[in-house]
Each structure stands twice: as structure tokens, then as C-alpha cells.
């Protein structure tokens, strides 16, 4: 008797779920001039929620600015969580494409997810704007695709110019490079090393702690090697917070100036890092301190809506949305043919002014990006990344010669 009651409650629950699935299961009929559906394929859960939030917030801000309409059609946003997992990312992008029938996908953040969904997206009638997955392969000649665009800086576009800049603008000649031991870490440091050594400098040691290291003490001891005059690093997220803090805690900051990829001092993480971040010099494409009319307007609007300053990821999200909005507007809402849309994006991108500078895509649909050298400082009691120098526009083909022969 007891069991029957339990069985019944379970069956009831089960059939409720199945009913809901069947009801929501039927794909939404995309009427000819229905809304433009845009999927946000981001890691809402997992260890990169701030990146996801930044991209989403940036994109939503833009869509608000254009009144949630483009080319005469309303804009509908659908969100899917990749959970920072390649398999889940693939399942969710299939849902966006086959179930939700989106015309555009903004995402992903993780490079592994980006690679995982690449072949699938390539074969679908959808346009993907990649806001953050920065592994260099995704827009290499072998992998580049008509319907996929990327608006973030590749590891090459970021670290290679920085390598040259460091040689030209500092007296450091014997550098230790350090980064998390995964593909992004290696690619970034390799690009930096190639540039720095090509200029005549020397990278005397590489230290790669495993991803997710809690205690950097032993690695810091390894970095502190005789003859080194500076350090260039790549860490992201929680690792960056711990590394930068412990770098100061163990006294290295005084003796070995710390340079790195902008991810080490990402705005959302600066409050957590604290004063340990002051003085770091990094290479990035964006800081809310950029002094341009477009950026000032962007920062103001962002603050008004979200109560905080935009980060790199906000810029990536905003530009992704700008691209979609501009193309949709120019095509008067006729966005159902990806080939047409892709061609249109290439046409209108020159007219788009992004918070970081003018927009351009190369032939592989990778952004030709404006790079800056940033310095972390304390202004009015707050930690910010100020612009130290400009490295100018960087196209991926300029900086991949050392591996892409």
C-alpha cells in the first residue's frame, strides 16, 4: 500500500514532466516576419560566470539601445547554459538551432566549447558571433567559416604585440613567463616568447602551475630565479586572483615587475584581488577608461543600467550585438539567409564604432582589434586599468607567422 502511494506520486511527477516536455517540445514556428531570435550560449554555471554575465550584459545593453528591434522585427533573446562543458555546449547549441530556430548565436566563452560546436555550427543555417572563446584555431585558415565571426582578441593578437612592446619600451631583457598549464596559457606565453625573442630578448624560464592551483608558493619560488628582471603571465579568473595576491604576499612584486595578459586584472575580479594588483602592466583591447566619445557614452549607459563599469567581456558582448543589429537593420530584417547576412556583416562592419575603436574583420572573420597597454592603478580609492600606451590595430595574420607557416 505504502509503495503504491509512492509509485503513484512518482508516476504523477513523471507524467507531468513528460507532458511539459511534449508541450514545449514542438519547435516554435518561425513565421516569415516573426521576431529575430538570438541565442546566448554562455557558461552561466561553472567557473566563468562573470565572463558570461559580462557578455550578456553588454549584448542586452545594445539591444535596449536600439529599442529591442532591428530591421523592423522585434528581437527575442534565448539563453542556454553551456555549464562550461563541451558536450553540454553542443547539446544546447543544437537546442538553440533546431528547437528554438535562432538566426544568431552569441557565444561561447570557453575555447573547448567553441571547438566542440564549431563543426556543427558551420553546417547549420545560423550565424555565430564568438565573443570570448579565444583559441587561435577557430579563425585559422583551416577552420574559418562563412557563418562564424569572432570579436575577441586571439591569444596571438594579445600577447605577440605585447612581446614586441616590452622589448621596445622597457629595459627588461631576461623574462620569466608563467601561466596556467592549459592550451590558452601555453598559446599566450608562446606568442609572447616568439615576439620577445624575435626582437632580441630572452625568455629564461617557463613556469606552468596546473589550472586551479590554490597555493602558488612553490611556483613563486620557481619563478624567482637568478638573472630574471621581469615576469610575464597569463592567468584567468580565480587563478588570477590567487596568483596576483600571492605574488605580492611572497614579496616578488617588489623585485620582479609583473606584466601579463589583461585577464589577470579583469575588472570584475579587481575588487577581489585588491591592492596587490596595483602596478601591473597588461595587454588588453579594452578598459572603461578609454577616452573616446563612443566609449564614454557606452560606460555611462552601462553604469545607468547595471550600476557598475563595463569589462572586456561587456565590450565583447556589446560588439557582438552591434554586429547583429547593424546587419539586421541594413538588410531590413531579412536575416534568414546566413550567406546574405555574413556578406552584409562584412559590408557594414566598417561603419560600426565600438567602445574599443573602429571595427573591422579580416577575411577569416576574425576581428582586427585595437590593442592597448594598460596599467592597474588606484584612482579615487578604486582600482582601475588605465591606458598606458596604444599598440594600434592588430590583425591575426600579422602575428601568427611564428606558428602558422
Amino acid at each position, binding site marked *: 500500500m505504502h509503495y503504491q502511494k*509512492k509509485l503513484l506520486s512518482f508516476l504523477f511527477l513523471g507524467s507531468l514532466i513528460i507532458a511539459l516536455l511534449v508541450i514545449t517540445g514542438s519547435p516554435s514556428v518561425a513565421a516569415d516576419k516573426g521576431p529575430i531570435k538570438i541565442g546566448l550560449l554562455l557558461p552561466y554555471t561553472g567557473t566563468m560566470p562573470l565572463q558570461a554575465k559580462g557578455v550578456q550584459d553588454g549584448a542586452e545593453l545594445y539591444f535596449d539601445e536600439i529599442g529591442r528591434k532591428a530591421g523592423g522585427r522585434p528581437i527575442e533573446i534565448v539563453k542556454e547554459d553551456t555549464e562550461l562543458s563541451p558536450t553540454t555546449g553542443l547539446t544546447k547549441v543544437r537546442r538553440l538551432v533546431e528547437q528554438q530556430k535562432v538566426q544568431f548565436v552569441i557565444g561561447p566563452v570557453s575555447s573547448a566549447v567553441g571547438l566542440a560546436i564549431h563543426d556543427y555550427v558551420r553546417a547549420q543555417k545560423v550565424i555565430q558571433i564568438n565573443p570570448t572563446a579565444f583559441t587561435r584555431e577557430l579563425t585559422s585558415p583551416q577552420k574559418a567559416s562563412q557563418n562564424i565571426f569572432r570579436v575577441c582578441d586571439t591569444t596571438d593578437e594579445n600577447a605577440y604585440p605585447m612581446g614586441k612592446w616590452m622589448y621596445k619600451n622597457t629595459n627588461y631583457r631576461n623574462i620569466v613567463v608563467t601561466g596556467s598549464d592549459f592550451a590558452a596559457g601555453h598559446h599566450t606565453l608562446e606568442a609572447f616568447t616568439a615576439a620577445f625573442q624575435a626582437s632580441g630578448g630572452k625568455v629564461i624560464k617557463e613556469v606552468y602551475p596546473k589550472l586551479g592551483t590554490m597555493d602558488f608558493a612553490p611556483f613563486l619560488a620557481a619563478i624567482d630565479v637568478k638573472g630574471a628582471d621581469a615576469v610575464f603571465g597569463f592567468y584567468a579568473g580565480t587563478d588570477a586572483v590567487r596568483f596576483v595576491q600571492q605574488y605580492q604576499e611572497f614579496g616578488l612584486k617588489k623585485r620582479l615587475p609583473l606584466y601579463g595578459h589583461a585577464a589577470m586584472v579583469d575588472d570584475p575580479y579587481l575588487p577581489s584581488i585588491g591592492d596587490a594588483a596595483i602596478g601591473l602592466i597588461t595587454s588588453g583591447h579594452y578598459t572603461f577608461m578609454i577616452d573616446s566619445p563612443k566609449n564614454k557614452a557606452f560606460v555611462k549607459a552601462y553604469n545607468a543600467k547595471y550600476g557598475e563599469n563595463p569589462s572586456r567581456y561587456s565590450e565583447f558582448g556589446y560588439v557582438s550585438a552591434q554586429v547583429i543589429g547593424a546587419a539586421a537593420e541594413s538588410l531590413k530584417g531579412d536575416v534568414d539567409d546566413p550567406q546574405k547576412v555574413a556578406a552584409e556583416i562584412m559590408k557594414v562592419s566598417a561603419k560600426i564604432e565600438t567602445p574599443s575603436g573602429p571595427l573591422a574583420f579580416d577575411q577569416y572573420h576574425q576581428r582586427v582589434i585595437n590593442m592597448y597597454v594598460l596599467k592597474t592603478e588606484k584612482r579615487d580609492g578604486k582600482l582601475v586599468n588605465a591606458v598606458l600606451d596604444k599598440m594600434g590595430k592588430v590583425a591575426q595574420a600579422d602575428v601568427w607567422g611564428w606558428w602558422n607557416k
Partner: protein
Amino acid sequence: MKKGRPVITLLIVLALLCAAPLFLPSYYTGLLTLILIYAIFAMSLDILQGYTGLASLGHAAFLGTGAYIVAIINVKIFHGPHFAIELFAGVLSAGIVAALFGLIVLRNTGTYLLMILLASSMMLWGIAFKWRSLTGGDDGLPGIARPDLSFVHWNLHTTTHFYYFVLLFFVIAALLMYLVVRSSFGHTLLGIRESETRMTALGYNVWLQKYIAFIVSGIFAGLAGVMLVYYNGFVSPSELHLVTSAEVLIMVILGGVGTLFGPALGAGIIILIKNFVSGYTEHWMIILGALYMATVMLAPQGVYRLFRRSQK
């Protein structure tokens, strides 16, 4: 319990599975394909867990090995699909890994076994993560082509054909596993689960039986890995990670340890709910967590046994 009942139920389920692509949208057919793959994976773990009584938090080792071997052959060696070789190599390599692990771990029992298997599969994960030239590191190996079955007029690049392909292997695997657990070997395993000392006293070579069960379990998990890599078109270290091992263990427990088909049901429930709920809220983890807790409270023996019991 009437003898005919379970068979009829199974036939109905099989019929539904065969007919599914006809009335389901392509996304759900794809999802069902994924469920079938994880069902094979979960059932393979049940042979170890439910029938032999050996708990494992490292079962992803076999799934991942099968997946990676196929990927490496497909992408690095042949630059194109070679189904027979890939299938054979994938399944065999998983069996070999099981044979190697089995030599080391079977002296451990209970929690310790759980942990040494966890550590061993995480070592494999570490290798896949670090050996970037072979495995692509954390980026993984994308671009894996599905088998070319044009000689039987099957185009595995379509969702429906691929679904039937996986369904075929699912039925074969389920049948084989069923025969294994129903055989005298299976009964020996049950005996070992109940009491190893008794079985030793009865003259069985307990270590050998456990070893064979371990390898059999690993082989079927490897098969699931082969199917998974064809489904995804890529492989990444997460196929070897603790999280994957934990997920499949949860599927087995939720479905019903020692029922063989319960874990398949568990796989279906978890994948469906995860996908469904995450489309509506960011807080799907709370709902999933509550579901797990509710299952333990309402159906501590697993969901499958709820149905079995009510048939008495």
C-alpha cells in the same frame, strides 16, 4: 510476478524507441540518442556496482579511453572514418585499461576502491590534458567523422539514421549485458556481492571473477565511449573526468542499483530533466539536487524498483 509481464513491457519500450524519430522533433531525437549512449554507460557500471558490488568513481576512464582511441585513429591516423577498426580498437583499448586497472585495484574494498578508481581515472584525465600533441590537451580533438555506412544506404550525418545506428548498438549491448547477468557467471557475481568470504569458502576464485567482471564492465563502457565520440564529433578530457564518473554513478543509483535496466532509466531521467530545467532557469542545480534527495526519500531502492514492486 507474472513471467510474461516484464517481457511485454520491454517490447513496448523497444517499439516506442523504434518509432520515436517519427513523432519527435529532431532535437529530441538527438537527445534520445545521447540518452541511449549514457544508458549503455550506466548499465555497464551496474554490472560492476550492482551485480559485483564494486563501487566505482572512476568509470569514466573506460568511456574516455574508448572515445579517445577512436578520435585519435579517426583524426590523427586515418584522417577519415574507418568504422570497423575504430570500433574494435575503441572497445579493445577500454578492455585493456580495465585489465590494467583491475590488476592494481582489486585488493581495495568499499570506499577505498571508490577512491583508487577515482584517482586512477583522474590520472588518465591528466594524461589527456597534458599530452597536447596527441590528444589536443584541454581543447580536445574536434572534427571526428561519423562512420561511412553508405554501403547499406545509411547516412549517419542525419539525426534519424544516426539514432537508429545507436539504437542498434544499444539493443545489442543491452541484450549481451542481460545475458551476462542472467548467466551462471552473473549469479556468481551476485554471490560475491553478498559475501566474498562465503564464495571463497565455496571454492570460487573470487579475485578472478571480479577481474573478469571489471573487464566486461569496462568493455561496454568503452562501447559507450565510441558511440559518444561519434555523436559529439569531438572528444575532450572531460570524458575522463571525475564529474563524468560521478554523473554516471548517480544515474545508476537513481535508476536502481542491480537492476540493469534501472540505470538506463536513470540516465534518461537525469538527461531529460537537466535539459528541460536548464532552459527555464539558471538555478537548475537546485532542482536537480532536490530531485536526487527526493528520490532517496521516496524511492531509496531506485526508480526502477518502484515499478517492479508494484507488479507483485
